[in-house]
């Protein structure tokens, strides 16, 4: 592995960091020190959480598209909230409640700034990306869609949007359409231009495919949607953690992502929506927090974004997400992106050295930081089990893109996905373990 020549995309600029014999776009060694879990050994009893007897294999964590790990500053921010100013928000006059309320509101401001939204009014905290999708589908879709309308998605869509709009389509009579893919796993934009028409009310597309690694031209798709007076919803669950995203530049009407894939905690997702549109939409969940005044007969809604955050909201998670955004911005999203692209490109090159490995999606340089693949002779689940014996954590299955896997002609695939703390040595470990599996099944 030391003989491998670093890719040119690692660059050799002033920000260049050398770790061992490798050069990286960011300081991997000091980043890894923020993630104690990466030092874990695995392989023993899985019924008791945490390190234990029989854990003797170093962990190689390559399942970041499923969830990323949480750096110490984020863990600390959440622990600090619970230890020192835990209180419910927006309803107490007492000191702790005010501290918690300010921190929770500022988390919205920070996230707004991070993705280029105009302000907290445009940032709704949800449970996850899926809930963000459902919020728009229920609050806007059920009211606005009818049999004369259509919703356009893509063949690579994640179940989060695919199932949601499919079912809203069944409820409203709206037709659901899927933009087809070219052979290299990119969108067929001619098909997009044909399917998005004057009856299209919503174009809901992935920013980055969690299976193919394709980065979709969301600006162009948004423009197509707007040319036909349709809204554009972008699912950025695999984009915001990994590259600079500016919703203003994209121009989309809605944008969704999750905290736990970007160094934040589980239990928090984000819905960005243009203020004018969110203002017109009716709430999706009713209850406390989201009301300004209530009588036995009627209720008035709170202002944005609280109108969409019924009940006690995700306070600790919001504070943790704020810390996660701080953490990523300190590294720099450009460098995060460069580091992952280099790793994905390296993994793509190493895996495609073999004729019996099929890698899905576009070539290395054009893809996001993940590689889904299959080894001819070994089912993806068997492969994942064997990789696990070597401490290598990947995802095996359909990655919540079952219709796409039908298109690919594979019920399942193995997927390695990378983040800021991964190294080329870990990809070498992956490739070596894949080779062991090949030999075991030969």
């Amino acid at each position: 592995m030391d003989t491998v020549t670093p890719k040119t995309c690692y660059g050799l600029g002033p920000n260049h960091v050398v770790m061992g014999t490798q050069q990286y776009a960011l300081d991997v060694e000091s980043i890894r020190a923020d993630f104690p879990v990466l030092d874990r050994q695995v392989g023993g009893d899985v019924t008791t959480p945490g390190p234990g007897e029989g854990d003797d294999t170093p962990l190689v964590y390559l399942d970041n598209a499923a969830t990323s790990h949480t750096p110490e500053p984020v863990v600390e921010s959440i622990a600090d909230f619970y230890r020192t100013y835990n209180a419910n928000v927006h309803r107490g006059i007492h000191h702790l409640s005010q501290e918690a309320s300010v921190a929770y509101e500022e988390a919205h401001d920070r996230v707004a700034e991070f993705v280029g939204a105009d302000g907290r009014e445009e940032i709704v905290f949800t449970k996850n990306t899926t809930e963000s999708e459902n919020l728009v589908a229920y609050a806007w879709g059920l009211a606005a869609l009818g049999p004369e309308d259509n919703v356009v998605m893509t063949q690579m869509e994640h179940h989060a949007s695919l199932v949601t709009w499919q079912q809203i389509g069944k409820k409203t009579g709206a037709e659901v359409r899927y933009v087809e893919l070219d052979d290299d796993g990119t969108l067929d934009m001619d098909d997009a231009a044909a399917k998005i028409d004057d009856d299209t009310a919503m174009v809901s597309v992935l920013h980055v495919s969690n299976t193919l690694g394709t980065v979709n031209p969301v600006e162009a798709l948004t423009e197509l949607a707007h040319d036909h007076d349709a809204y554009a919803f972008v699912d950025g669950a695999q984009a915001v953690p990994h590259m600079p995203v500016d919703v203003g530049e994209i121009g989309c009407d809605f944008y969704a992502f999750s905290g736990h894939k970007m160094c934040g905690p589980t239990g928090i997702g984000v819905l960005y929506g243009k203020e004018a549109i969110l203002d017109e939409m009716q709430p999706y969940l009713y209850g406390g927090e989201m009301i300004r005044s209530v009588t036995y007969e009627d209720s008035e809604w709170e202002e944005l974004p609280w109108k969409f955050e019924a009940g006690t909201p995700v306070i600790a998670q919001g504070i943790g997400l704020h810390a996660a955004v701080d953490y990523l911005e300190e590294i720099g999203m450009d460098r995060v992106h460069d580091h992952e692209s280099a790793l994905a490109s390296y993994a793509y090159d190493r895996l495609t050295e073999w004729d019996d490995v099929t890698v899905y999606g576009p070539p290395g340089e054009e893809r996001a930081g993940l590689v889904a693949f299959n080894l001819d002779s070994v089912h993806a689940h068997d492969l994942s089990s064997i990789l696990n014996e070597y401490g290598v954590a990947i995802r095996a299955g359909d990655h919540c893109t079952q219709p796409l896997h039908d298109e690919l002609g594979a019920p399942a695939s193995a997927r390695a996905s990378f983040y800021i703390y991964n190294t080329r040595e870990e990809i070498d470990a992956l490739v070596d373990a894949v080779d062991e599996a090949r030999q075991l099944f030969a």
Partner: protein
Amino acid sequence: MGIGGGSDMYRQQILDHYKNPRNYGELADPDFSHTGENPSCGDTITVDVRLADDGETIEYVAFSGDGCAISQAAASMLSERLPGTTLSELAEMDREDVTDMLGVDISPMRIKCAVLARQVAQDGAKLYEGDIEDLDVTKTED
């Protein structure tokens, strides 16, 4: 990196059954035949069973299918195990009997692969005996 303890889950027996499946194919005149699948894995198994003259003892078993090593090896082993047992003994086979038969620890995420063939055989027998009706295909996630 360390090589942790070898591939326990894929001990020689399972790989042997996967690479050289026993009783693979279809029976010419089965008393019952049933199919099942793990939709999320893409594993499929069809089990054909012929009974002895007593109508209770399993005489021949054949299986066909496609999928991961665990699901296919479990079917192969089951096809060797079942002849000589009765339908009521088949009905009593539980998850532990399957993992004992496989002789390895099966991780919780893979257990449905391991039990697919057993479930298919049991559902086939229930359909044959009229204990259940209207089951086209067994799905382990149901």
